């Protein structure tokens, strides 16, 4: 048994140790809370609407979201869901949002290239026709598609919030920031090559090619919420989380029903098991 305890102690010590990685550093993500984070937490529809507005008016100039269609905005749990319109293709708000966007198409009579107003079936328009054009317009950097961004980064909305609000942080003296880039302590990177100070104290974080995207009151929220930088960042992070995981509300609701069923069923099975085995020793 003592050997076992020794083995367990070694194992625990090893598992608890946090190894230092040689390369990339990142400041600990900012501590912000959202309504949907707990197992029983759901999206806040008003926050999603505000976040959509920030995406639409600020981010969509450079960032595509090609997996989200306008009709998705009217689904259950989505920013513009209306119980009167269970079919999102009938939702008037969604139809209007789609119609405001022009899409390239072919004229059905002449075959010429034309533009037509969007429908609910259309996916969010990409600001650039292809990745090469996107890089050319952004100093060689490719603004990532935002459909899955919150799921493709460790920390999800907290990562997005931290990077967006940390963009353009004043760099410590001794850090050379390349032209066209900005210092962001929350952007994972290795700044050793740009640091002229104490080699044991390399600043955490990295460079980002995106200029600080948010300014106070850049977006005016329809519900009157003050549009501070923090609020806009919080709301757009929530919207991006929804975009990456639109089924979260449905999943958690179904989860509650399934867990209750399973606990009841397990209880019944256990009682049956004990009943069957009552007279048999084991």
């Amino acid at each position, binding site marked *: *048994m003592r*050997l*076992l305890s020794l*083995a*367990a102690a*070694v*194992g625990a*010590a*090893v*598992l608890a*140790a*946090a*190894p*230092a*990685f*040689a*390369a*990339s550093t990142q400041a600990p993500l900012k501590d912000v809370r959202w309504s949907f984070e707990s*197992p029983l937490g759901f999206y806040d529809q008003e926050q999603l609407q505000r976040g959509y507005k920030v995406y639409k008016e600020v981010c969509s100039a450079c960032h595509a979201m090609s*997996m989200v269609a306008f009709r*998705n905005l009217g689904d259950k749990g989505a920013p513009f869901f209306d119980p009167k319109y269970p079919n999102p293709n009938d939702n008037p708000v969604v139809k209007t949002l789609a119609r405001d966007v022009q899409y390239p198409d072919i004229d059905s009579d002449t075959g010429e290239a034309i533009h037509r107003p969007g429908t609910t079936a259309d996916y969010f328009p990409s600001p650039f026709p292809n990745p090469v054009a996107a890089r050319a317009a952004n100093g060689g950097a490719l603004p990532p598609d935002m*459909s*899955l961004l919150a*799921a*493709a*980064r*460790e920390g999800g909305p907290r990562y997005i919030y931290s990077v967006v609000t940390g963009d353009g942080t004043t760099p410590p003296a001794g850090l050379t920031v390349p032209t066209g880039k900005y210092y962001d302590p929350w952007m*994972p990177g290795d700044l050793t090559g740009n640091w002229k100070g104490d080699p044991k104290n390399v600043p955490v974080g990295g460079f980002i090619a995106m200029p600080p995207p948010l300014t106070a009151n850049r977006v005016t929220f329809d519900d009157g919420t003050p549009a501070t930088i923090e609020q806009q960042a919080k709301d757009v992070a929530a919207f991006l989380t929804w975009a*990456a995981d*639109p*089924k979260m509300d*449905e*999943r*958690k609701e*179904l*989860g509650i029903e*399934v*867990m209750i069923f*399973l*606990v009841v*069923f*397990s209880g019944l*099975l*256990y009682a*049956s*098991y004990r009943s*069957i*085995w*009552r*007279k*048999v*020793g*084991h």
Partner: protein
Amino acid sequence: MDEHISTYQPKSAFERWLDARLPIVRFSADLMEFPTPRNLNYWWTFGGILAFCLAVQIVTGIVLAMHYDPSGAGAFLSVQRTIMRDVNYGWLVRSIHANGASMFFLAVYIHIARGMYYGSYKAPREVLWLLGCVIYVLMMATAFMGYVLPWGQMSFWGAKVITSLLGAFPVVGDPITKLLWGGFAVDSPTLTRFFSLHYLLPFVIAAVVALHIWALHVPGNNNPTGVNVKSKADTVPFHPYYTVKDLFGVSVFVIVFAIFIFYLPDALQKTDNNIEANPLVTPAHIVPEWYLLPFYAILRAIPDKLTGVLALAAALGSLFALPWIDTSKVRSKRYRPMARNLWLIWVAAVFILGWCGSQEPDGHVFPGGAGPVFLDYGINTVTWLSRIAALYYFAWFWVITPILGFREKTLPVPDSLATPVLSHPATVPAGAAAAPQTKG
């Protein structure tokens, strides 16, 4: 097929007619009546749990295949847009399938641990054990190919790293790798053939499982004491005693499964896999799925590529050899305290190897520097810890276990498996015959 006499009596004219032509009802009835040791504990429910997992994976997999596009151009979109967003309940079926793979491996590791602890691999169950090892290897191949299918960054780069291992073999390495890839790199042809094989292998697994269950029914189940069944009094019919107990086990297992599906669907996924595969950009940390980590650590611990591959094969192969390596006359480690403790350290070594596999090779084990460099890496690095743990892993198989059989002091083994049981007040003593003591 075994010594048990069938007690099935056809109850209707139709049943008699069928029984004379294809005795399938008789076969099922005999399975239900199968005399099973009465002292099996909950570790024995994992066989049933594994059958459940295989069924779940096959059903959800077939559903996913109805919507999946196995081409390099369309795979990522077909999963992330079509299945996850548009197909009715597509998100649910995908979450079940992806988390189901992890649950499948969790169950198989517990099942293997049970076999190792209670000596279920020992005579006369060697073939049962070998078939189990074959199932395990098939599972690893299936899971590896399945992980490539969503065509994310981890899918692609994991495939690239592991298939590149074949290049380690001299002369035949490169042609075999190109054959496997269907090109000069992992690309759409690789993906398509992985899809075909990923669909095929589970049915091969199902066939081997059928053989596995057949091989079980010849000698009958092992039990926690490791003592053979001596008489019918030691057993109870499989139905309803163990059908209901297994169902209860499955139900509790599904509670854990459901927590992942509904509340932690991405906990076991790497975030990088939500980025589409890009052959020009390597992710910062390429890590296989958790259930392959110990073997990944063993592979990486050895600096030479070919030897690393051979070590990986040997790590798996050692499992196959276990029935013949273990020289002990006592089956269950319940009565082998020294063997038990040394095996528990082996389990700890596997956990340590798993952790090492998730870290960078030059990651530090304890906070502080990398320590003095010994050979190629500092002493305080993950690589050296992997080497030490791998050393114990192999030593346990090839040095400790064979020697232990001769040298250890064992606890007295009970006469019959029912002896520890009959002292229970609720038992009706049903004439347990005291057979002369035989060594397991």
